[in-house]
């Protein structure tokens, strides 16, 4: 299942998972939505594997449980793994595309007024616009432009006061405040966030900013 570990069954099982394709009806649906002509017949999904449900069939699940992880995975293995074509720097940087899952936030830092804040969007928000603003803010941070990130986050806050990515936006705001040099304020906000949401997946990310020695 993993390089250097796992049973043959696990490796085969995960290998099968990697080859599964979307069902033809899903492909056709998306083709229609995108306005593209139907493509060549899609290869059927990977053959069904017999799941482990009994002691006899339990070998599959049991073998998964008995992974030969064998201690920490060598970083060398990860670094030398054959990789797909590298992701080039994009206007939308790869690191801006993904976001950790979040728990709902009940509060957040105050935001500065922005001169070009658009009218607030409907309460349900627009997912694509949310993603665009969050991605843009993350790219701005990565590019060393916290002011630009904060402006985008102001826009996000105005357009999506109850957006689905609001906790991510709050955490990113704290990071942008820190990057802009206001470490004391960032530390206070990070501590507040962590105190309110100790189990949030974002909490570890903000822990560094909340540390007393962070300056």
């Amino acid at each position, binding site marked *: 299942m*993993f390089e250097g570990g796992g049973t043959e069954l696990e490796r085969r099982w995960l290998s099968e998972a990697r080859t599964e394709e979307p069902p033809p009806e899903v492909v056709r649906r998306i083709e229609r939505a995108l306005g593209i002509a139907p493509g060549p017949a899609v290869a059927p999904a990977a053959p069904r594997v017999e799941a482990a*449900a009994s002691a006899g069939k339990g070998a599959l699940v049991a073998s998964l449980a008995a992974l030969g992880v064998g201690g920490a995975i060598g970083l060398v293995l990860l670094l030398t793994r054959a990789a797909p074509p590298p*992701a080039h720097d994009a206007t939308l940087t790869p690191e801006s595309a*993904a976001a950790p899952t979040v728990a709902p936030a009940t509060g957040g830092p105050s935001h500065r007024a922005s001169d070009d804040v658009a009218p607030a969007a409907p309460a349900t928000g627009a997912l*694509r616009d949310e993603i665009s603003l969050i*991605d843009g803010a993350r790219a701005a941070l990565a590019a060393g432009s916290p002011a630009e990130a904060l402006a985008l986050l102001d826009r996000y806050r105005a357009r999506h006061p109850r957006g689905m990515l609001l906790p991510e936006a709050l955490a990113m705001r704290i990071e942008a405040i820190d990057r802009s040099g206001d470490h004391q304020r960032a530390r206070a906000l990070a501590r507040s966030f962590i105190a309110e949401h100790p189990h949030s997946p974002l909490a570890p990310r903000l822990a560094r900013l909340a540390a007393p020695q962070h300056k």
Partner: protein
Amino acid sequence: MLRHGAVATDMDRSVPPQADPARLEQMFRAHQGVVWRVLRSRGLPPDVAADAAQEVFLVAAQRLADIRAGSERSFLIGTALHVVQANRSRARTRVEDTLEPDVELSDDDRGTLDDRRSALDLVGKVLSRIDPPLVEVFVLFEIAEYSAIEIARQLGIPLGTVASRLRRAREAFRGVAHRMNLTLAREQGQPT
């Protein structure tokens, strides 16, 4: 147990007229599989994953001009992760509430384990019990077959963090699969 509601699709679904149809089609043909696998391995059932996959490519259609050549895969997978996150937020389910120390099997779980299911079904089922930040790294490495450096870049985290989360994800995977198997074996009166 996570409840996956419908994917938020309250934006206009139409493809912008300025979108490059040839490039859009090429992106879809080349990456529909990995997008599907990422969504499914993050625990989305097939019907919700279908909605999510469509949303991912519609987002790409709208942002096509901003996606640099060669970064299509990264963009699509990043958007897929966003859509999963939004789906979870929309379901208003707290992640920590789903991480049960003793895995209880729902009827759906039993169906997955008893019947012939795809490998991706079972992987997604196990991963749905694991802390999402760990699952993200696991899925990017094992399903999307990213390198560690690509994962670090995609998620904006240090390389050491990638290694740490992957190690913890694998240990968690082992634990959940083991408990799930024990629970099922007990229910079936089999020796554990």
